[in-house]
């Protein structure tokens, strides 16, 4: 009995020692990234795409930068802000992460912001798209997009291309309101007219009555913003009601035509014109390689969420390279400001003043390429900053 206890004690002590020494090694040579994304729940596809892209990037570029080993700790917040906050705190306090990243929805990015400020840990936002996020903490950097970027551009484009009367159909929640406001500002300032404005409840099973209203308003085009998951359902009913044949075009920010879902929507989506930051059909070598590698690894097409994650991890790698491996928050943020590189979506940079992303916005039309539906880009608006901030 005595002997047994003794060995147990010894093992425990040895274990402790080992643990401690392992920790010491880690603290010096490892840079830890806490990746908080929704892996379950309604937003799970966002989290999965980001996780996939980050893994792909690390496979391609190795897991050491400037002599540091990169370790990613993945946490699932199911897009619930309370979880995000708790997980961010655990990661910062217990796991001593150097960077937190991910954030599938706006409230999640908000929830982690005060922690980033307090702990001086950079928060790399890879998905959430509301304009004010980067103002919530001086340690927030964004590699996704803002809704304003795409919505203002489609407003400008519509005016220039002879669309005079537009009916709007947007989901009744914060990003929907954002999209509508930015579009309306630019479209009406250019002389366009909004003939009908409908806000659809977020949990809306059937678009039929709203679409009938759109049809009866007889606009030149309808501006649509619904959460990515509902886009397919919407386009099907749009075609079923014969709106495509009555000449009412669909325009909007590109979320509706996410590459993730586009091919499942069927031919009814053909011809929809959207403004967005990324299309899997973007004709650059960088993107072709990215799409091919992503398809090979995960057997599906990358969407804009995957690109946000891919660029986010790249930004972290590049910043570490620039600081020579120094991983404290202030050095990293300083290194990230003004960083510019070529992403699969095209040339992008981090605005040194706002820490928000500056990127091209493309006007695309849904077309059939090799039997699959793609958003084919045909016009480019260069270096678009977030209009939510340039206004000030």
């Amino acid at each position, binding site marked *: 009995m005595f002997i047994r206890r003794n060995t147990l004690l010894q093992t425990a002590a040895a274990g402790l020692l080992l643990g401690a020494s392992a920790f010491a090694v880690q603290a010096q040579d490892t840079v830890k990234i806490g990746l908080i994304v929704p892996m*379950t729940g309604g937003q799970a596809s966002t989290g999965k795409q980001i996780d996939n892209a980050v893994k792909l990037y690390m496979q391609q570029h190795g897991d050491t930068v400037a002599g540091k080993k990169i370790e990613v700790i993945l946490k699932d917040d199911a897009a619930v802000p309370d979880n995000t906050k708790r997980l961010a705190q655990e990661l910062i306090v217990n796991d001593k992460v150097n960077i937190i990243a991910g954030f599938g929805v706006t409230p999640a990015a908000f929830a982690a912001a005060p922690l980033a400020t307090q702990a001086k840990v950079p928060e790399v936002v890879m998905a959430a798209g509301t304009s004010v996020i980067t103002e919530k903490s001086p340690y927030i950097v964004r590699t996704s997009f803002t809704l304003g970027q795409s919505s203002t551009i489609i407003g400008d484009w519509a005016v220039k291309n002879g669309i005079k009367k537009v009916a709007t159909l947007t989901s009744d929640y914060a990003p929907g309101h954002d999209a509508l406001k930015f579009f309306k500002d630019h479209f009406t300032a250019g002389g366009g007219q909004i003939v009908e404005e409908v806000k659809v*409840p977020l949990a*809306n099973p*059937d678009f039929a009555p*709203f679409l009938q209203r759109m049809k009866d308003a007889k606009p030149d085009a309808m501006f649509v913003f619904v959460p990515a*998951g*509902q886009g397919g359902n919407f386009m099907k009913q749009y075609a*079923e*009601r014969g709106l495509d044949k009555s000449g009412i075009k669909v325009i909007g920010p590109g979320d509706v035509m996410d590459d993730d879902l586009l091919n499942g929507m*069927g031919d009814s989506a053909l011809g929809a014109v959207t403004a967005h930051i990324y299309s899997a059909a973007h004709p650059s070598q960088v993107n072709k390689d990215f799409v091919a590698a992503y398809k090979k690894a995960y057997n599906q097409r990358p969407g804009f969420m995957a690109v946000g994650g891919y660029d986010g991890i790249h930004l972290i790698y590049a910043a570490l390279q620039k600081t020579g491996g120094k991983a404290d928050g202030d050095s990293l943020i300083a290194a990230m400001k003004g960083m510019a590189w070529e992403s699969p979506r095209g040339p992008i940079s981090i605005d040194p003043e706002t820490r928000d992303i500056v990127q091209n916005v493309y006007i695309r039309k849904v077309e059939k390429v090799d039997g699959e539906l793609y958003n084919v880009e045909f016009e480019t608006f260069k270096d678009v900053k977030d209009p939510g901030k340039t206004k000030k």
Partner: protein
Amino acid sequence: MTTLLTILFDGVAYGMLLFVLSSGLAVTLGLMNFVNLAHGAFAMAGGYICAVLVNKSGVPFFVALPMAFIASALIGIVMEQTLYKHLYHRSPLDQVLFTIGLVFMAVTVVDYMMGSSQIFIHLPAMLEGQFNIFGVGVGRYRLMIIVICGLLTLGIQLTLANTRFGSRLRAAVDDPRAASGLGINVPQVFALTFAFGSGLAGLGGALGAEILGLDPYFPLKFMIYFLIVVTVGGSQTITGPFLASLLLGIADVAGKYYVPKLGAFVIYTVMIVILIWRPNGLFGRVAQR
């Protein structure tokens, strides 16, 4: 005028769909006195089975529909025999907790197996689009829903009222002891009824995927609609939920068309008004026990 008719048509189609989805719940809740909140899970199962058959295995849509019914009914009978059977005599609270647990499990399982994004069933071309009858836009798919659901309703009503099985079922519900004393195999009657209700839900899920969208959260999103139909219609008859579904479907579609700002509330307002006026539902009788 033509717009009004189109709205009416859409409303009827939506109501019919609600009816097929909820009629199974009306049967288990009303006839068997079992609170089955997991009803939507069977609908989801039917939807996914139909989607996999059509999209992956290339089974024609009209063959996949009855298969979705049969598969959901089989799942129903297995669940009834292994799990539900033991809860018939428990308190409603136990039943609610048990079935809501099942819902969460179903959501997770489907999320794991099929992914969390919405899926669509590839429809045959003949069901897509609209045609005009005297200027009234009629969606082909919605017309098909009305036809199928109308026939089903008639079938259910006739079965319950006129067949031997119907009278056995009613007897088994009214007084299980006396019924089994008369030689009616009560557990078997319940099992068949439960399976049929689950099958209907599965068929509803397969039909509804096109209009309501299909994702792993389906049972949670639509649970409230099923419950509204059953509470408003009263759960003792089949005609009650049927008329309630039609009323709610039309009110919902018309409300969203004419007052889009209030759209989502119309269905709840209708429910509240009806329940204040008739607390037992439109056709509910005062509880007899």
